[in-house]
Every structure is written in structure tokens, then in C-alpha cells.
């Protein structure tokens, strides 16, 4: 078992990538930035990590470099946030559809404008349909494990997809947490060397990035979708083996006190820690409340969600992105869609909160649950707006 250290989460994430022995790191310090890349640059410069560090001239180039390096079969890592992701979005879609298994650390932050560097999920929701595996983390240990798990799953020949590890900006990336490191032996046992399904090599020339004419484009999209859906058992297997090594068992949908719950709070990322305190508080008041933490955002674990949520009377979804002009918010709309076909389904309430890092405390979560249950909010409610 590895040592346990108190460390800033973004630096630990860089160490996790370094433990995976990445070959190429490409990144650009757009505002906002985390320490992930700086720490990797230090590790490369000091000789602790034998990798190419490419300080590119924009985020668009960062993702392009990553695509190139994965295409030749190099293990590749990058980190970005908000505006950076917005700029690289074009290539993010390409990495997904070309099935290039790189790993990205995404510090979830609000999109401009107004200019903001604070935490919410609007950046991740912008690239929701890029066809990557997308995981949301709640604490530092999860981030560390998720990065190693991401390489393991993404590079699996049956999957061959990029993986996005979503980490709440500031409230998680910049905090110091106790994190149990993996030893080199553990990583070697868990993560086999990268064997790409197809790669650019002079021995067997292939063309990548070619045109998808109307007669083939649809089939390619379908194949990509099937690959993403079929990655689920490999993701689960990765978590099972991770549990055998570390004793920490992760799953796509995690629950807290839901067995007899009439009301379920559903969230992604750090808001779940806050909500678990709110659940304890409401349980002490005799309210039957539980919590569902959605870790795996893509592929969406619809089966698990249906099974867990069907038993409840009310589901309060805490959404951390605004969908201007839309019917509700991104997570709620998915939950409502998958529950719609169920014969018995709970009422699903949409609470949009924590936008641009507006603080959400356990009391706020209690208030949102009370509001959802007592008031008839039809589509959605944006919590805590002044004026």
C-alpha cells in the first residue's frame, strides 16, 4: 500500500499521471489554470518523468498535439479548464470520434462572460456530447484513483476512447487533502503498457482523420456511440480491480441512505459531500432523505439510475450549469428523459445552484429540498438569485 500524504489535489493529479508513466504532456496556461501542468513540467525537467512536455501556444494546439501523440501510440495527458476547454472544443470532438485514448484533467469552471474563473459545471456540459468517457470526482483520493483508472479504461483495446476526469475548480483542485498514493508496483500491476488499436507507423501505413461522406458518416457515429456504451463493463472491471488493489470500491452511481428514502438528492462532484451533510441533518429531523452521487456522466448509467430512483417519491437534482432558454438543466433533463419511460416514476425537481461558485452549504441543500417539496416548481428553479 502506498503512502498517505497531505497534498494539493491538482499536484496529486499530476503525480498520478506521472505514476502512469505518460509519454507526452501538452498544455497551455490559459486563464484559469491549475498546478497540474506546472508540476508535470517540474517532474519532466528534474528527470523524475521520462516524457515530452510541450508548452504549446494555445489550448487548440494543446489538444491537437495530444491527438497527434496518441495517434502514434504515446500515452498522453493534458489538463485544462473553462475557456481553455472552450477553445480546444473542436479537437475534443475529434479526439472522441477518432477514438484516441488520451486522458484530460478538467478543472470545472464557469464559462465567460462575464469573465469568471470560479467553479461550476458549464464547461463540462458544453462538451457533453463529445463522445468521451466523462467521470466526476468528489474528493482528492477519487481524483488520484480516477486518473489511473482513466488510462486503464481508455486505453483498453475494446474501449479506445479518451477520458475526461472532471474535478471541481478551486473547491477541489486547490485544496490540500490527505491522499493515499499508489506505489509504482501497484500501477504496473493495474495498468498494462499502451497498445493502441491502430496507430500511425511506417510499417503499416494508415490514414487518419479522413472525410466521412454522407454514406459512411452515420455508421461511424453509430460505431462511436456503441463503443461508448460498450465501455461500461470495462469501466466497472477497472473499478473492481482497483478495489482489489486499494480497498476503495467505486461505482457509476453511488448511494447514501437511499434504502428507505422518499426523497433523493442527486448531484455530481463536490456538491455531493455537502449534500451528504444535509442528508444527515434532515434524517435527524425525521425526514426520509437520501443521496445519489452520479460519478459516471458518460456513458450514462441509465439502468442503475432507474433502479435507484424508481423507488423514491421525489428526486431533487442539483444542477451546476445553466441552460439558457432551455427546458431545465443538463443533468435534470437526462434524468427526466430516462425516467419518463418508467411506469412508476418519481417527481423530478430541477434546482440550479452553485453557478460561478456561488457558495452552497448544507443548509442551502436543505432549503432547496424543502423548496422543491413544498412549492410547485414546474421546470426549474435557480436557487439563491438576489433581487
Amino acid at each position, binding site marked *: 500500500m502506498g503512502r498517505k500524504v497531505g497534498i494539493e489535489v491538482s499536484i496529486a493529479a499530476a503525480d498520478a499521471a506521472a505514476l502512469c508513466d505518460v509519454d507526452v504532456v501538452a498544455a*497551455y*496556461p*490559459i*486563464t*484559469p*489554470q491549475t*498546478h497540474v*501542468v*506546472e508540476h508535470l*513540467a*517540474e517532474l519532466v*525537467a*528534474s528527470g523524475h518523468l521520462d516524457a515530452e*512536455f510541450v*508548452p504549446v*501556444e*494555445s*489550448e487548440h494546439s494543446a489538444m491537437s498535439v495530444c491527438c497527434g501523440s496518441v495517434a502514434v501510440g504515446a500515452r498522453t495527458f493534458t489538463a485544462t479548464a473553462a*475557456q481553455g476547454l472552450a*477553445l480546444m472544443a473542436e479537437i475534443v470532438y475529434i479526439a472522441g470520434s477518432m477514438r484516441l485514448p488520451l486522458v484530460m484533467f478538467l478543472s470545472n469552471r464557469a464559462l*465567460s462572460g462575464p*469573465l469568471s474563473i470560479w467553479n461550476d459545471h458549464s464547461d463540462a456540459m458544453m462538451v457533453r456530447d463529445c463522445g468521451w468517457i466523462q467521470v466526476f470526482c468528489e474528493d482528492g483520493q477519487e481524483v488520484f484513483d480516477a486518473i489511473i483508472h482513466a488510462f486503464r479504461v481508455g486505453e483498453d483495446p475494446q474501449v479506445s476512447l479518451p477520458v475526461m476526469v472532471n474535478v471541481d475548480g478551486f473547491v477541489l483542485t486547490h485544496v490540500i487533502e490527505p491522499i493515499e498514493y499508489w506505489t509504482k508496483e501497484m500501477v504496473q500491476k493495474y495498468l498494462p503498457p499502451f497498445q493502441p488499436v491502430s496507430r500511425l507507423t511506417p510499417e503499416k501505413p494508415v490514414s487518419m482523420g479522413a472525410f466521412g461522406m454522407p454514406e459512411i458518416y452515420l455508421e461511424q457515429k453509430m460505431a462511436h456511440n456503441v463503443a461508448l456504451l460498450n465501455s461500461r463493463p470495462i469501466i466497472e472491471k477497472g473499478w473492481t480491480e482497483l478495489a482489489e488493489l486499494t480497498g476503495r470500491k467505486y461505482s457509476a452511481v453511488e448511494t447514501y441512505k437511499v434504502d428507505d428514502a422518499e426523497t433523493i438528492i442527486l448531484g455530481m462532484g463536490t456538491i455531493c459531500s455537502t449534500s451528504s451533510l444535509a442528508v444527515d441533518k434532515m434524517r435527524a429531523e425525521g425526514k426520509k432523505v437520501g443521496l445519489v452521487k452520479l460519478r459516471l456522466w458518460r456513458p450514462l448509467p441509465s439502468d442503475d439510475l432507474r433502479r435507484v430512483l424508481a423507488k423514491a417519491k421525489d428526486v431533487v437534482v442539483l444542477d451546476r450549469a445553466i441552460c439558457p432558454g432551455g427546458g431545465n438543466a443538463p443533468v435534470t433533463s437526462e434524468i427526466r428523459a430516462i425516467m419518463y419511460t418508467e411506469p412508476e416514476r418519481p417527481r423530478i425537481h430541477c434546482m440550479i445552484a452553485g453557478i460561478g461558485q456561488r*457558495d452552497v452549504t448544507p*443548509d*442551502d441543500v436543505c*432549503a432547496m429540498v424543502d423548496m422543491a417539496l413544498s412549492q410547485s416548481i414546474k421546470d426549474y428553479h435557480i436557487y*439563491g438569485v*438576489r433581487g
Partner: protein
Amino acid sequence: MKRRLRELQPFDKEAEERAIELGHGLHPDDKYLKPGRIPHIWCPGCGLGVVLTCFIGALRQKQFGVDECAVVSGIGCTGRVAGYLDMDTYHTTHGRAIPFATGLALAKPDTHVAVFSGDGDLFAIGGNHLIHAARRNVNLKVICVNNFNFGMTGGQAGPTTPLDAKTSTTPLGNAEPGFNLPYLAHASGAIYVARWTTFHPRQLVHSIGESFDRTGFTFIEVIAPCPTGYGRPNKLGSGLEEMRYYRDMSEIRYGADPADAEIKLRGKILVGTFEAADRPDFMETYRTQVIARAQAGGKGKGRAA
């Protein structure tokens, strides 16, 4: 519902006017600076205050009112300038100051449009825009504050970081050479190219004024200290020590070949006005070529207009 946030206070214009009448709380630059925004966020020893003061000095020298100018900036420490100036300013996303300013300059040809941004913004993520605006000779006054690194995000290496310089992403020294900005601007087609350091405020004021006199794409590079980001790992000392360094290492050479203006770590800094040429700007070319031809019925002999 609990309200923990302080209520937003709208800016009190009347109170400001009262303060002006009473004759206190005023600074010579107050006419140009947004009240309530000072003190700025820049670090002690940073050169940006000097550059901003010089810019205001040039506006005052030219007797430009705040209504006649617009300032566009990108992201980074220099990008904050747009927030401090009390005129029409725009703080764009990273690297996009020039395209925004191009639109502004074309729609409002009588406005003096200045682009005030950093080396990381203008030459890394926005590099493509700069060379094309220079090629088109759009009427923009570009002031690039070069501090040799991405200061705001934590001192990472950028496109101007000299070879061997240490930054947070090049802890053992940069393996890439930096851009020679005046040479690049000149080669791209800028009609006026100058470089000064923050040790040369008088010359800088004059240079900014000169650039306002010309119609077309002008480029002024200002070398500025960044003691927090770039100075510390490279052991350049405090902001004051960097100013001494500029004093000792700068060589004023007007009309020098921009190709010789390369900056090396701890090397000589060539300053001066390197280029002051004239060629028709984008608006003029467009008017005389495209519009005139269109008016002549597409016959191709539009010059008569």
C-alpha cells in the same frame, strides 16, 4: 433565504463630482481612470503601471478625450488595463483582442483604437490574428507589454521567453528561443515599429503619440519587469533592480534593423523606433479598390473614384 453576499454598490457619480469640486482625492490621471477601480491588482515592481501612465500621458499630449478612443485588451495582467481606463474598453477572451479591435476600427474609423495586451496574449494564443492584422494594415495601435512569461497564471514559459530562461514550466531553462517581436511585426507589415522599456517613459509617451499620428497598423513593444513571475526564477531581483538592468543594458538605436533586436537572457536590449513607413491602410485600400470598382459597375477601372 439567507443572504450572505454584500449588496452591490453602484458607482456613485455624484459623489465623485462632489469630490472633484472639493479638489481632493484627485490624481492627474483620474480623468482617464475608472473611479473606484484603483488600487490596481498588479504586483509591487510590476511595469504595467508605468506603461498605463505613459499611455494616458500620450492621450493627454494628443488632447484626446475619452470619447475619441477605445481600448481593447486580452487576458492576463496587461488585460486588466481595459478595466481601469474610464473609456470605451473591452476585455476580450484570451488572444482575441485584435479581431475584436479590427471590427471596432472598421465600424468606427474615426475612433482611435488601441490594443493593449501582453506578449502571451498577442503572440501565443493570438499570434495568428496579429500577423494578419499587420498584413492588412488595419488602423490599430498595438501596445504589447512584454514581460517574457505568462505572469497571471503563474509564470509559465511563453512565446517570448528567451532561450535558457527559467519559468515555472521550464525549471531547468527554456529549450525554445523567444520571438523577436519588432522583427515579426515588421515582417508582417506593421508601418510603425518601436521598442522601449519601462525605464524609458518619456520616449514611450512620444512613441505612443507618434503611433496615433499614423493611419495603419502600428506596433510598440514595451519591455516590463515581472519580478513575481519572470524575475524571481531568473534572479533578476526586485522591480527596481530590473529597472537598473534596463538602464545598463538598453541601447537606443533609432532606425535599427529589427532583425538585430533579438533579446537574449541577460543580453543587450535594443530600443528605439525601428520602422516608420507609410502605406495605405486597409480602409483606404478597400475604398479605392473594392468600393470604387463596385461603384464603377465592376468594370475594374475604379481608381477614377
